[in-house]
């Protein structure tokens, strides 16, 4: 069995860190979506999605990133994506996510990027 899906949210001051584990596909993406929605409802907009333990993502999971990014940026926040392994990076790359999203090595560097005004790629704000 591949490792099962889980999503956990940790808040640390200004930041909300959403940790994905296992496979995000059309079956599990709704739980990821709920987690992002909840964080935004709670008034947070500095969101880090930690993909270190993510083993797989399909377009259903990528859609969750797409859905909220504009809203979060309009409020002066961002969704940073960190910890992507080589294997999981592929669909992000094929679809050109680097032109719109900020990819970081790990949670700490993702948090640090929020203070860097030039950090948002694609000028989408």
């Amino acid at each position: 069995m591949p490792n099962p899906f889980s999503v956990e949210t940790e808040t640390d001051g200004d930041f909300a860190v959403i940790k994905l584990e296992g496979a995000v596909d059309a079956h599990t993406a709704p739980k990821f979506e709920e987690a992002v929605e909840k964080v935004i409802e709670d008034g947070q907009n500095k969101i880090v999605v930690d993909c270190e333990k993510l083993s797989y993502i399909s377009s259903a999971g990528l859609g969750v990133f797409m859905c909220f990014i504009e809203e979060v940026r309009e409020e002066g926040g961002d969704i940073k994506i960190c910890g992507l392994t080589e294997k999981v990076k592929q669909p992000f790359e094929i679809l050109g996510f680097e032109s719109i999203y900020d990819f970081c090595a790990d949670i700490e560097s993702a948090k640090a990027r929020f203070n860097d005004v030039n950090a948002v790629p694609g000028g989408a704000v």
Partner: protein
Amino acid sequence: MEQLEKKFALTVPSSTENLALIREFVGNIAQQSGMDAADAGKLELAVDEACANVIEHAYGNDTTKEVIIRAKLDDETLSINVEDTGRGFDPDSVKQDELNELVNKRKTGGLGMRLMKTLMDEVRYEIEPGKKNELHMVKHLKKGK
């Protein structure tokens, strides 16, 4: 060496719950084809996207329906067919928006077919709504594996 054509088939209820099983099925066959893990991952993703579309769009999440995945493997080619008897669609009329347009419109979807086309060497639909819709995908295997 001794490779004849090998045929595989998987039938599952039309539910996203079965996408993991579908990926395991495809992943195992990819391994038998001699593909490396990265190529196997691409194949799993393409078939996952195809089946997710059937489950969601062709059958509108009616879990009493069935999705059939057939695979055919020989020395040169791995071909995958995804079959449904759902409502069908006209693949040519599907507008493929760019990522930034989708993001601007706050869309959550619209990327699946693009992924499939990028990941596979051939992607072809044969649509007979309500009778049989077939998605035919081909991956050419690298020589001298």
